[in-house]
């Protein structure tokens, strides 16, 4: 992957490149690299404990049913089975809206019905097969239209609307519409996408006396500790959650799921450690998904491109339950991305008898961005204004939602400039259309409400014999390189070589407040705390050394492994530790609050080139150039990998990924990695990261912001816009399947220009 770094962007904050403490090691390899390439890195599924049992969960085959009866006798009697749980014998634990851990009513095909723990996986599977359940099927609703139809069976209470719609308005949208000289009025839909982190959800549960340890694949060791303790009605201090390495999460592992508590209950019941990792099938049914949306969008503009109004009516398919975690704000981007006086959104949340939705990388923003940025492209074409120019004419200089200035008001504009230059947007010459393959280019911008980080966040930094530093944070490394980035920030803040630093993370027993790996917040939350801890530790190391060297502390400097005086005298950290004896130098760094007067955002832009085969309907993404403002870049390999990964997931969302539910039974038809189409190596375009390394020191002392979520946000819209450029087909519904493309390509040219699948 190529990263284009341009000095003027890299150090536009005015700092001298030679003094930039992050610069020297910004291309360092991951410290966990050797463990990951040798198979040594231990993930939750790899935990092996003496006497450990294997657990499996029985799931409902029905989308909606009442459990009449369960007979677990035969299962419990099988040799090797140590525990069987269902509503009959499990503790009655409230879960979700009005449900229970083991509910008598199941509300989607995949809902938990019973669980077993046995000597081996095979025995556990046999035991599941031996459980007899009598269901009384109930009528179900599987999509939003049927869920909202009059007389539809209600999944909870009396209506399938989960609460009142969220309405947000500024200005006078009606007047904005009257003032408009051109109106784009469209309905967009997006599909349910599945996270499919390659490591499934799950944990290994171990009880020692009254204390529970969960080796869990979780994005939030502290959140999970708190939620599990609450569900089990035991004090938090009796629960420990450990996440050494994790194989991705993408949002779906930020809440306690039923299986976490089920594992704990099975382990308690059997008095043995229990290994409960979901299989791929369950992973695709019951561990969250990106909500489907329907968005009716209207934007009005003057002939010169000035937006006069943006309104959107949004429906979100949440599935059978509200699983919690980060909310999906499809409406967010409509209020912030462009300067517009008159904006109104109405966002309703709809229950269906399908697996529950949960945050998926930039929840809501991916969906909202697809609609808004498709519409902007359509507007640009209708007005005959260059798409980037149109966006510049509506540039939001301030956060209109919170009515505050941004900490980096100019950065979005700079990402436009970076991508268009690196891509050659204005110079682009279409290859001559010959044969069935047509090329085209598309642009999309985005912002993202996350990436700024916030309290609480604490780290502990200690000088340990024989002169090394130890950094501790409870935060887990979801797989993005948190471990490496935090260690780099710390080594640089101390001014020592990273090789003299050890880092421990992913353990709630460290008793340090830490963020969940969500909202692109980890680095921006913890880096400032690390700076605080490093300042304190350095000061105390220098004071201690001053006493021994008989030099004033101000005349001393901390270097790798030693303290050096202006006079040239030195003290090794090893001897310092020896002199300290049992005294330790340790400090806790705390994340300070963000400034109330300013608003932090992350943002960016992407240009995409596609090739459409008008005979087969196939769309190939050829090239993507991405530029994102993530503040100062601590490690450009890690950032480039995040960009690459986000773009790849954006390509999957745009072209191939969709959960397919049987419209009658509610059964998921592609709950496996054969039929659920993740992008593969052959789908990989050239991806260029046009790096924008702008320290956002207004945001925090470390100048860093997040990059986890942003790169997935604009990809689908940029692809849609490029497809239009290539073949004149405007797409309103993700994913852009081969079948759908063929259908549109075969329609009359007029229909191509303005088709809009859904009746309004």
């Amino acid at each position, binding site marked *: 992957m190529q990263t284009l770094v341009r000095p003027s962007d890299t150090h536009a904050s005015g700092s001298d490149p030679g003094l930039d403490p992050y610069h020297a090691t910004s291309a360092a390899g991951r410290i966990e690299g050797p463990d990951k*390439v040798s198979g040594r890195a231990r993930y939750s599924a790899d935990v092996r404990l003496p006497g450990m049992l294997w657990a499996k969960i029985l799931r409902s085959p029905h989308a909606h049913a009442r459990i009449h009866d369960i007979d677990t006798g035969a299962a419990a009697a099988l040799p090797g089975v140590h525990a069987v749980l269902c509503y009959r014998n499990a503790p009655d634990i409230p879960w979700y809206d009005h449900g229970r851990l083991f509910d008598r009513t199941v509300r989607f095909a995949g809902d938990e019905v019973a669980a077993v723990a046995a000597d081996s996986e095979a025995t556990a599977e046999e035991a599941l097969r031996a459980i007899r359940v009598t269901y009384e099927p109930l009528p179900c609703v599987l999509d939003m239209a049927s869920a909202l139809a009059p007389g539809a069976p209600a999944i909870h209470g009396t209506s399938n609307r989960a609460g009142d719609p969220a309405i947000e308005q500024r200005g006078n949208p009606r007047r904005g519409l009257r003032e408009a000289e051109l109106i784009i009025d469209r309905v967009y839909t997006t599909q349910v996408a599945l996270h499919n982190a390659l490591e499934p959800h799950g944990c290994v549960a171990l009880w020692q006396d009254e204390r529970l340890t969960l080796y869990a694949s979780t994005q939030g060791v502290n959140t999970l500790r708190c939620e599990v303790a609450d569900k089990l009605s035991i004090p938090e201090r009796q629960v420990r959650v450990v996440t050494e*390495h994790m194989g991705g999460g993408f949002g779906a592992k930020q809440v306690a799921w039923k299986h976490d508590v089920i594992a704990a209950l099975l382990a308690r019941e059997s008095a043995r450690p229990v290994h409960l990792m979901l299989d791929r099938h369950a992973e695709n049914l019951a561990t969250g998904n990106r909500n489907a949306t329907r968005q009716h969008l209207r934007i009005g503009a003057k002939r010169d491109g000035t937006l006069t109004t943006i309104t959107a009516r949004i429906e979100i398919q949440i599935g059978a339950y509200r699983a919690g975690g980060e909310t999906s704000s499809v409406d967010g981007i409509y209020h912030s991305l462009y300067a517009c006086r008159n904006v109104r959104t109405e966002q309703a949340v709809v229950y269906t008898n399908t697996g529950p939705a949960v945050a998926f990388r930039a929840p809501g923003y991916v969906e909202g961005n697809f609609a808004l940025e498709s519409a902007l492209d359509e507007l640009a074409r209708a007005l005959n204004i260059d798409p980037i120019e149109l966006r510049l004419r509506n540039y939001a200089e301030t956060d209109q939602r919170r009515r505050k200035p941004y900490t980096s008001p100019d950065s979005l504009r700079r990402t436009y400039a970076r991508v268009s230059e690196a891509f050659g947007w204005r110079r682009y010459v279409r290859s001559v259309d010959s044969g069935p393959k047509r090329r085209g280019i598309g642009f999309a911008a985005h912002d993202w409400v996350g990436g700024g980080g916030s309290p609480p966040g604490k780290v502990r930094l200690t000088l340990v014999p024989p002169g090394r530093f130890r950094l501790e944070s409870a935060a887990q490394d979801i797989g993005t*390189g948190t471990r490496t980035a935090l260690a780099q920030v710390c080594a640089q803040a101390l001014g020592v070589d990273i090789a003299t630093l050890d880092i421990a993370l992913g353990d709630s027993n460290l008793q340090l407040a830490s963020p969940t790996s969500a909202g692109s917040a980890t680095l921006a939350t913890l880096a400032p705390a690390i700076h605080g801890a490093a300042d304190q530790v350095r000061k105390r190391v220098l004071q201690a050394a001053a006493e021994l060297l008989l030099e004033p502390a101000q005349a001393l400097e901390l270097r790798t492994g030693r303290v050096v005086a202006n006079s040239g005298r030195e003290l090794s950290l090893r001897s310092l530790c020896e002199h300290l004896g049992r005294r330790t130098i340790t400090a806790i760094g705390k994340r300070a609050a963000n400034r109330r007067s300013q608003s932090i955002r992350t943002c960016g832009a992407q240009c995409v080139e596609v090739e459409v085969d008008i005979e087969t309907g196939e769309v190939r993404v050829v090239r993507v150039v991405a530029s994102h403002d993530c503040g100062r870049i601590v490690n450009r390999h890690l950032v480039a990998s995040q960009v690459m990964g986000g773009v790849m997931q954006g390509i999957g969302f745009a072209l191939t990924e969709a959960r397919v539910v049987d419209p009658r039974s509610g059964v998921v038809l592609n709950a496996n990695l054969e039929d659920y189409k993740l992008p593969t*190596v052959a789908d990989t375009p050239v991806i260029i990261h046009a790096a924008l390394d702008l320290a956002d020191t207004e945001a925090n002392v470390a100048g860093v912001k997040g990059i986890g979520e942003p790169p997935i946000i604009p990809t689908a819209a940029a692809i849609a816009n490029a497809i239009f450029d290539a073949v004149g087909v405007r797409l309103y519904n993700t994913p852009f399947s081969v079948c759908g493309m063929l259908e549109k390509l075969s329609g009359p040219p007029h229909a191509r220009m303005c088709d809009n699948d859904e009746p309004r």
Partner: protein
Amino acid sequence: MDSGLLRVQLSVNGQRHALALEPRRVLLDVLRDDLGLTGAKKVCDMGNCGACTVLVDGRPMYSCLMLALDWREAAITTIEGLGEPGQLDPVQQAFITADAYQCGFCTPGQIMSVKGLLDTTPEPTDAQIMRALSGNLCRCGAYGNIMRAARIAAGRDPGTDETGSDTA
């Protein structure tokens, strides 16, 4: 045998292991649960993803689709068997150099696929690399860097920062 267990010997990473296995046991499970070699991962358990890839007589194969007792005669190599003590195999090193991973869960499988390719085709073309990797999914989307790691291991890319190739 009464217990239904069969005595088999498996040769894994150059060592012979005497095991008593149920005939239905799958190689991936035996590696992970009986031999403690948890480098190969179980992701789909049905031959869709490649996370369980190991070398069998030098050929990359999905260990989740293989009955362990069918492979008594074979030389099986897992990710743990690559490199020498204290020294990584060039393919492993190339993955670090190219940052060819994020979460690392697919990585052992990806590395074994590249290793299998290079052992038989030391100078592969991009098309050959892509074909060799086409059975390995990476949800973190590190494909571009994985391709580059393969090129570095094949000696086609010096692996320096400046030469970062940008093609997939």
